[in-house]
């Protein structure tokens, strides 16, 4: 029993890992295509039909680029920085429930690597580690642009983590659990949390943009001011790792928004279809990925619409608007909960 359990989990972990990498890879392609379409262009279309092989070509290019390690850098930290960024980005996918449970040979196999009872808290802990990858990389480069980018990144991520956490507290007050699996299961059918927490979702998505360093909050790497921000000195696959980590973060936060606010793998009328458990689960996985893709699209859509915030505007928005508003959201949610409990 114990070995079978381990094998199940290993297989699911590997599949989740592979899918995460695949989607992160093809996010770069999607980003370029969406950017092109929004600017009335065609985008990459030379490598394979519709440029489908473009990400592979990019990856190949990253491997063959000259690898430069600056003379005055701290070599150990310089090399380990992208690794940490990548590791923390990948670690968060552990608690995401990719689907219900498959019934194979009389055993229920939940499509989740680990159902932690503190799942949401775990994600927060790992995401806040993510800033170390950027900070270490920027510091070890021994370059003022990198350092400025790293400082910006860390202050931005710390500021927005607060209001992100507060936005989630309001959600957790409603669900009464920190387990991702239970939160998703409570939203069975069309009983999605977005209908109870629309304002909380708005706060959450804004903070998610800031956490992922995406436009309009991409100050850590703003090309116009800081050359490349924290990865100015990086080249070849180390740079690729940083970019990859960014896209993985985007994928994971899309999965998060989909499962916390938009019902995860639940879809309307899932009970009245009269299908078997396995069929429902498989459809659920597809629905979940559709939701994720929609949010990835929103990430890119916003990127190619909005310009970047100025640094003081970013901080003012974070501290003077987002935190008070999310506190207010928590307060109102508490009041409403008290009212209905009577």
């Amino acid at each position, binding site marked *: 029993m114990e070995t079978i359990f381990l094998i199940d989990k290993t297989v699911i972990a590997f599949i989740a890992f592979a899918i995460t990498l695949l989607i992160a890879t093809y996010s770069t392609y999607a980003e370029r295509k*969406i950017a*092109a*379409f*929004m*600017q*009335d*262009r*065609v985008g990459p*279309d030379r490598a394979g039909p519709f440029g489908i092989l473009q990400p592979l070509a990019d990856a190949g290019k990253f491997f063959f680029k000259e690898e430069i390690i600056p003379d005055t850098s701290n070599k150990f930290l310089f090399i380990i920085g992208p690794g940490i960024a990548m590791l923390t980005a990948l670690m968060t996918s552990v608690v995401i429930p990719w689907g219900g449970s498959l019934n194979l040979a009389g055993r229920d196999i939940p499509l989740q690597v680990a159902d932690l009872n503190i799942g949401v808290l775990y994600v927060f802990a790992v995401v806040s580690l993510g800033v170390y990858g950027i900070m270490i990389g920027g510091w070890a480069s021994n370059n003022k642009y990198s350092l400025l980018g790293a400082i910006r990144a860390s202050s931005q991520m710390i500021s927005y983590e607060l209001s992100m956490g507060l936005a989630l507290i309001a959600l957790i007050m409603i669900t009464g659990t920190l387990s991702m699996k239970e939160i998703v299961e409570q939203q069975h059918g069309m009983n999605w949390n977005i209908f109870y927490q629309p304002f909380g979702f*708005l706060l959450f998505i804004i903070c998610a943009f800031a956490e992922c360093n995406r436009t309009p909050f991409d100050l850590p790497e703003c090309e116009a001011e800081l050359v490349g921000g924290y990865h100015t000195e990086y080249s070849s696959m180390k740079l690729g790792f940083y970019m990859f980590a960014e896209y993985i973060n985007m994928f994971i936060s899309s999965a998060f928004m989909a499962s916390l606010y938009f019902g995860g793998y639940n879809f309307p009328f899932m009970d009245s279809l009269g299908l078997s458990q396995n069929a429902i689960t498989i459809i659920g996985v597809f629905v979940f990925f559709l939701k994720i893709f929609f949010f990835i699209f929103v990430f890119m*859509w*916003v990127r*190619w*619409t*909005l310009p970047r915030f100025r640094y003081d505007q970013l901080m003012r928005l974070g501290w003077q608007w987002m935190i008070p508003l999310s506190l207010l959201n928590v307060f109102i949610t508490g009041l409403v909960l008290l009212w209905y409990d009577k």
Partner: protein
Amino acid sequence: MQLTNRSKVVSNKEMTAAEAAYIPAVLKGMAVTLKHFFKRPATVKYPEEQREFSEVYRGKHVLKRDENGAERCTACGLCAVACPAEAITMVADERKKGEEKLYREEKYAAIYEINMLRCIFCGLCEEACPKEAIFLTKEITPSNYEREDFIYGKDKLVEGIEPSLRIDVSKRQDR
């Protein structure tokens, strides 16, 4: 004077609450980009697809031959004088016996060079030419790695002798 009714009066008034909240403006901007998402791209996929040129497009020059295949240019130098960019240079030479097939008149250009980096493709050389020897064609001067490679000599400028290699410049002659 007002030319169009599209102009807006600029004002520095305080933002209203809706404007200060950013969200409506953000959604408006996203609607614009979404509209463009479904628009047809304006791209011309260059090597496979070429934008149509005007009939009288002024591209790379050609030094014409006459109907017998002899070069028309007599190295009079009027094109070089007319050239505002001073891109044309030439060395004249006298036709020897037996070269009547090659050169139309008794003087010809031994060297004829156009610096394509200097040329502004104005077409004044063509207007100055009394022998109808130089014309601008629809061809584009390709890019190159070296500056020297942009100096086009007779090897690149003179058209071929065979009828299939002749370049049609009738549209620019009719003008």
